[in-house]
């Protein structure tokens, strides 16, 4: 089974999904990411799905649950680069991914993470 690599850039973990997601891969990614956040103490997770062309409800739910898991571990998740076809599919499947932040591309995603980090810092 293929595993999706998780890259660390400072306080951010970067995941780029470049293969068609299978349920096993998705489960493994979820576990790996949870372990990595706890291990590194990262406060931001960016998932780049610009190369993902096919989604099903399982992958959609996986994105939601990763975001939930990260929030509990005190990290913010941003999903970036969703293709139009993928967005339409998710909407038709009735998945609006509440609680998941999204951005158009990696650059915008980084900006969003910075803003959110500042807000959180101010809250404290």
């Amino acid at each position, binding site marked *: 089974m293929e595993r999706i690599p998780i890259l660390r850039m400072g306080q951010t973990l970067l995941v780029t999904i470049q293969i068609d997601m299978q349920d096993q891969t998705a489960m493994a990614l979820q576990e790996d990411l949870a372990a990595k956040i706890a291990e590194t103490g990262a406060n931001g997770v960016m998932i780049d799905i610009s190369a993902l062309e096919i989604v099903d409800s399982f992958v959609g739910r996986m994105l939601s649950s990763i975001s939930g898991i990260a929030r509990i571990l005190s990290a913010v998740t941003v*999903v*970036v*680069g*969703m*293709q*139009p076809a*993928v*967005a*339409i599919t*998710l*909407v*038709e499947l009735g998945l*609006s*991914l509440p609680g998941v932040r*999204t*951005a*158009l*591309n990696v650059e*915008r*995603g980084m900006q969003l993470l910075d803003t959110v980090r500042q807000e959180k810092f101010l809250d404290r």
Partner: protein
Amino acid sequence: MNDTNQALLDALGAEESQLVESWHAALPLSAQTTGQSSRGEARQLLAGLRDGLRAGGAPEALDTPAWAPLRQSLEALSAARAAKGEKAGDTSLFVLALKKPMFDALQQRFAKDPAGLGAALWSATSLVDKVAQHTVTTFQSTREDIIRRQQQDLLELSTPVVKLWEGVLAVPMIGVLDSSRTQLVMESLLQSIVSSGSALAIIDITGVPTVDTLVAQHLLKTVTAIRLMGADCIISGIRPQIAQTIVHLGIDLQGITTKATLADALLVALQRSGWRVSRTD
């Protein structure tokens, strides 16, 4: 070739110009106006009929290969008449008017043979009926093609995505929103968001006559898809009556920025992206 075909061929073959004239005379007055072109069409049809009869085509089966040239000229005739905007009835009437001169010619030929006349008349009438029927069918399918093409044109016409400002796109929706149109708008808007990297889209519904639960559902879907992609959406052009309808229907537009006019929406968009508009004086 059997006797009936030969008889029909003889009836059609003799004195073509005279036949065409009496065919033309058999047309109702309203249909005689297009004199010259209908005579040309008549000659073409006669040629097709003779070819078919010579090739041994049975008058009852117009879909056999023997009648292929006739079918072609019939299709051309119906298509031309459909394009001119004539009625299907007039086109079939034109073909059916051939019966009178044809029957006259057969009657002369079989003056002393009632049984032969009966058989020949039956063949002739079934042949002309089939021809007329084929004209109407083709006429209708030509019309349907035109309608289908226009529908497609209308779909494409109604979904322009315009760039209002750096990073701000707008879609002026016009006309009734149904599933297929919403789908098309959604697709082209999302595609433009990706290609232009715009973070904000404005959907203007000034031109949408009514908003019911279904239309609201479509709008909500579009907004959700835009958000999933990482952009945001403002809905503008909500008229007072539509605002009332939305509230009375209990439609929940929570979390969606709505504005009365496109200008208001543009102002919000500019503010969000950090622009400030001021007058010089």
